């Protein structure tokens, strides 16, 4: 019974929520805590309805994200993709033959056959060790979409994002005695899991679901508007009032004296012939004019102040240049006591202005430099990206080709063997069922070693 009111998500959630509680809580499997239709595997939760929760109780839930089911942002470097599951590595391991796989992938593969999936050399599960830290770092930095809210962030941050920040993720209900889960964005201060009577149909529902009930499922949710008789939602009545075409409204020039009223849909008609129209429009224009004039005055005032200050500064500079020697003294010997207070002030101001100008120039330069830096980084990035992609493509093509060459080489080998040596292959022909497995492995090993001989000779 998928209920539209419960916003916890669909059936293919790529993450799991763990709701384990403190050990002293009485633990029992309470299926009521989870609404049907949710694919959240919540583990045992408490029935401790009579215990009150300590105020610092953590409402967050641990989330485990299935890294193979999430959406990655952009194309992932081919070197970080597991050749078995074709996803960015999950818990990568390095084999003794220098190949990287996900741990679960290679474990599965080795349980089927004890060969390296890439080079077909014997490989035991002991010859597999944790991949270098660098690979982990690269994987951690991969950008992925949050399965709940869709925000893009580093893959390694997903779980903590879901646990602590994601507004669309589920948390424990803040109610002290409540064991239900709610989306973080609607988990306010209090538990909203208390029964309320729907004002429309008198049914009882939890407050948290009331809005959805009144909008979607309430039997009495619709009513006819008393003005326009259109079907409207009871809970949206006020909103409709604001836009109903049949509600009587005053003329838009009422402010300037029009006493007329009309239905909203008829107002434009009246507005066209309203006797206050000309005045109203004029008044509007005047208002606008006044507003623009005011702002003009304000800017004028500002410029005026600025100019005043500049004039003062220039006067100061004038006075300073009247006494060049003093200025020299000041700047060279840095002996302020030897000059008059007046000159001191203007000299200071002058130096300060110089300093300011230099500072301005400096910050401009540094802005330019960083701008240039960004540009060149972008350029470099743009140029290397296609090369990198091409390289990855070439590498995979080369691998496939390699495989084929090996495979064809084996054909050729055996053909030669048959033609010149009259080898073992010549006698048994066709694939009749029931070949013995020892023959099979002998034959394989034989052809493999021969191929390798040929390759080393080449």
């Amino acid at each position, binding site marked *: 019974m998928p209920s539209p009111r419960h916003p916890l998500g669909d059936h*293919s959630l*790529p993450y799991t929520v763990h709701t384990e509680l403190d050990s002293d809580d009485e633990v029992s499997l309470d299926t009521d805590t989870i609404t049907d239709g949710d694919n959240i595997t919540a583990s045992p939760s408490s029935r401790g309805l009579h215990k009150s929760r300590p105020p610092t109780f953590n409402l967050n839930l641990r989330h485990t994200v*299935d890294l*193979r*089911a999430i959406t990655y942002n952009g194309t992932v470097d081919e070197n970080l993709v597991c*050749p*078995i*599951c*074709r*996803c960015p590595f999950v818990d990568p391991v390095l084999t003794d033959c220098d190949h990287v796989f996900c741990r679960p*992938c290679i474990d*599965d*593969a080795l*349980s*089927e*056959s004890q*060969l390296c*999936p*890439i080079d*077909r050399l014997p490989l035991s599960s002991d010859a597999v060790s944790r991949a270098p830290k660098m690979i982990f770092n690269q994987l951690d930095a991969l950008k992925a979409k949050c399965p709940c809210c869709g925000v893009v962030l580093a893959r390694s941050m997903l779980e903590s994002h879901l646990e602590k920040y994601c507004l669309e993720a589920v948390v424990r209900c803040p109610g002290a005695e409540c064991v239900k889960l709610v989306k973080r964005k609607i988990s306010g201060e209090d538990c909203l899991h208390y029964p309320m009577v729907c004002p429309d149909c008198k049914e009882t529902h939890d407050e948290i679901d009331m809005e959805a009930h009144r909008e979607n499922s309430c039997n009495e949710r619709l009513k006819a508007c008393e003005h326009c008789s259109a079907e409207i939602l009871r809970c949206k009545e006020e909103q409709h009032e604001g836009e109903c075409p049949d509600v009587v409204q005053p003329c838009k020039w009422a402010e300037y004296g029009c006493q007329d009223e009309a239905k909203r849909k008829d107002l434009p008609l009246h507005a066209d012939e309203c006797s206050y129209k000309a005045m109203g429009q004029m008044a509007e224009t005047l208002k606008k004019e006044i507003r623009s004039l005011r702002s003009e005055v304000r800017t004028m005032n500002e410029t005026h102040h600025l100019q005043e200050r500049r004039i003062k500064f220039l006067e100061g500079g004038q006075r300073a240049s009247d006494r060049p020697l003093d200025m020299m003294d000041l700047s060279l010997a840095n002996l302020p006591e030897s000059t008059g207070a007046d000159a001191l002030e203007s000299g200071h101001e002058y130096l300060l202005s110089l300093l300011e100008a230099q500072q301005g120039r400096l910050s401009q330069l540094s802005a330019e430099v960083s701008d240039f830096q960004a540009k060149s980084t972008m350029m470099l990035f743009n140029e290397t990206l296609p090369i990198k992609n091409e390289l990855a493509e070439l590498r995979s093509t080369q691998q*496939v080709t390699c*495989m*084929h060459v090996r*495979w*064809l080489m*084996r*054909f050729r080998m*055996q*053909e030669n063997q*048959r033609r010149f040596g009259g080898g073992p*292959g*010549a006698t*048994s*022909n*066709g*694939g*009749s*069922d*029931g*070949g*013995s*497995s020892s*023959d*099979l*492995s*002998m*034959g*394989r090993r*034989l*052809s493999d070693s021969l191929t390798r001989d040929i390759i080393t000779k080449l």
Partner: protein
Amino acid sequence: MSFATKRLGKELAKVHGNLPPGIALVTAEGFQEWLLDIQVLDANPIYMGQTYRLKFKFSSSYPIEPPEVTFVAGPDRPIPMHPHIYSNGIICLDLLGTQGWSPVQNVESICMSLQSMLTGNTKNERPEGDEQFVASNRRRPRDIDFYYHDNTV
């Protein structure tokens, strides 16, 4: 979502992008069974101008387990003549057996291997005991033990 489904989803996205010449996707409904058409590109007189249809069946353990690959007959889609291909479409190729399979293989690489297997063939014949095999075999191809080392063609 199972492991096989995720992996096949990735392969399908790639297959929709581009396939090597002579290989075309026919249907890939669900993640259990796909149909692909292959053609031999060089002028081998046995296969010239023909298109062959391949059926891939995936188990839930794909790619750890190999898919079941057979040729299927239809209008304009014969079963290619080859000393390792039975007239009911069953293919005797070590790559597709439990022994020769590697999980890094994929649908595309299997198709390319089959293409080159046909390209290199010069014998316009069926395997020995074809009629008997086709009449009596009720087993799945994966369970049949072929003499894979007998690749004398």
